[in-house]
């Protein structure tokens, strides 16, 4: 225990409070842990398990289902090149080939200096800017080979850090309020509304029946 920083731990506990059941916070907390470490370290997995009240195996078993939750060490910058059909038509595989050469790793690999992990991604919902590339899940616009090289140089020199923070997509997401109404309050409020609705419906029915009678007479 004690792997997650006090700040991350506090954020994690706040996330748990947002859901009717603690386990719902499992995936968001995995994102928080990735914000701290860049990937899901076993120590983090054990701690997340304790926070949400499941076994570490269940956290790993869940996390391993999801592409974004990284169970192996990942570079500082995760470079995702979409090669799905719309991007493929606009030269995504040629760009991926270039990226592999430039970074010296195959898709799925991480550079020796730990700076870059390259991935051959599925559709990133940026098809109007094909071929679509994300770095740490930030869109960087469509790129040709020269654009890619410039991006890599910039990233190495830390020139894009304002726009592209470390990965972990929640690093800049801050919820400012907790839940504002308790479940009991909401239920009571809904019951009141239901009674009001039913009263309106009854009235309408009586009115309609009255009108029908009137028409019949």
């Amino acid at each position, binding site marked *: 225990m004690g792997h997650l920083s006090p700040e991350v731990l506090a954020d994690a506990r706040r996330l748990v409070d947002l859901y009717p059941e603690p386990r719902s916070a499992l995936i968001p907390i995995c994102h928080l842990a990735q914000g701290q470490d860049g990937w899901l370290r076993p120590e983090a997995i054990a701690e997340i398990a304790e926070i949400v009240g499941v076994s570490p195996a269940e956290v790993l078993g*869940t996390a391993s289902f*999801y592409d974004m939750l990284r169970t192996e060490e990942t570079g500082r910058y995760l470079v995702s090149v979409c090669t799905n*059909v719309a991007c493929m038509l606009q030269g995504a595989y040629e760009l991926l080939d270039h990226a592999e050469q430039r970074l010296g790793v195959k898709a799925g690999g991480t550079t020796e200096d730990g700076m870059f992990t390259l991935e051959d991604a599925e559709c990133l919902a940026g*098809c109007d800017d094909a071929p679509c590339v994300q770095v740490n899940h930030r869109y960087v616009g469509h790129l040709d080979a020269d654009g890619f090289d410039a991006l890599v140089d910039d990233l190495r020199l830390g020139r894009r850090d304002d726009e592209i923070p470390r990965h972990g997509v929640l690093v800049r997401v801050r919820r400012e309020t907790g839940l504002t109404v308790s479940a009991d309050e909401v239920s009571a409020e809904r019951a009141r509304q239901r009674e009001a609705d039913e009263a309106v419906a009854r009235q309408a029915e009586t009115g309609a029946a009255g009108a029908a009678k009137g028409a019949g007479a």
Partner: protein
Amino acid sequence: MITDAPRIVTRHLGTPDSHTMGSYLAAGGYTALRKALAMPPAQVAAEVDKASLLGRGGAGFPAGRKWSMLARDPVRYLVINGDESEPATFKDHLLVYGDPHQVIEGTVIAAYAIQATQAFIFLRGEFALGLERLQQALNDAYRHGAVGRDIFGSGFSIDVVVHPGAGAYICGEETALLESLEGKRGFPRIKPPYFPAAIGLYGKPTIVNNVETVSNLPWIVENGGDAFSALGEGSSTGTRLFALSGHVRRPGNYELEMAKTTFRDLIYAPVLGGGIRAGHTIKAFIPGGVSAPWFGPDQLDMPLSQDEVGKAGSMLGSGSVVVFDDGDCVVRAAWRITRFFARESCGQCTPCREGSGWLEKIMRRIEEGAGREEDLDLLMDVCDNIAPGVSWPPQQTTICVLGPSIPSSIAAAIRMFRDEMLLHIKEGACPYD
């Protein structure tokens, strides 16, 4: 025909900082919510029913009818599906990044109409900036009194939570999404029950609506359901976002009146797709996301109507249109789409898990020039095991519709482009390489 229908979901886009509270309020934001809260919830639902708003996620189920199926239970949830992952679909991306307050206003209106006890907006995890903007918008909306306790003094309260996904196409399927929201692997649930409206999140009645669907609600409340259903034709009412990509000059999202504009207009009109590459002709297009069967140039004059596209044996689906011209290899395209399904199959059902992998391998060897003539029959046989009859709408041997969507592109390659498939095999190479 391009009509002068009003822009509905994109009406605030293009203004500076359209994602901020200041910009949204300046454009009259949150007045629809005030109006809705002054009506009985059933009347809000009735307006949406009158609008005949079809769900914009892909299945096209009427939103009002979905709401009416909600089981009676003091606890009921609303979940907004923003896990946009259907290849070539990027409309919810636009709405969340460009107008997150409209998504929130629509969410609260829906929550009020169905009297939800809590609402969740499940947003695709890869939308990093979208998550930031949506959460910021939500923080501002809480401060403004548009979300939370006693909204605008109406006595109605609702909490909204932005929930990040983590990268899995299958979580767009609503029961898989609910599993994921419960903190589990995104495995679609066995049906029946067919609708989460009966048994949904944590076993409670739940309505799942798409981001674009709820983005229509403020306009519908302001202008009335009749004004919405006056647009479009038949069951395809209102306007809709069409995401155009592939080999067109001007790929992008276009909001168009349903059933009035044709695929030809969308692809060729100078203010829309702007046509294809000079010196090329159109070869085929996908009318509604990669799960949909393909169309050829002879179907260009079909209107963008859910009914018409359905009758012609495909679907308008997520509203994403992908264009192939005569310089594009359809075998390669069909292989890449199949590879997508093979990667994204959740693995629960044998026909999908095994079938997708084998189909991908066979398609790849044809594309690479190592195919055999009998492969075409073999492909159809495997497809038949996933979706018997390989027809549309597909028969199903699996828990969800991911599996039965796999044959669409392969069947298109074989039925529409048999010669091109055979040419790969005869020449032992891709003729486009």
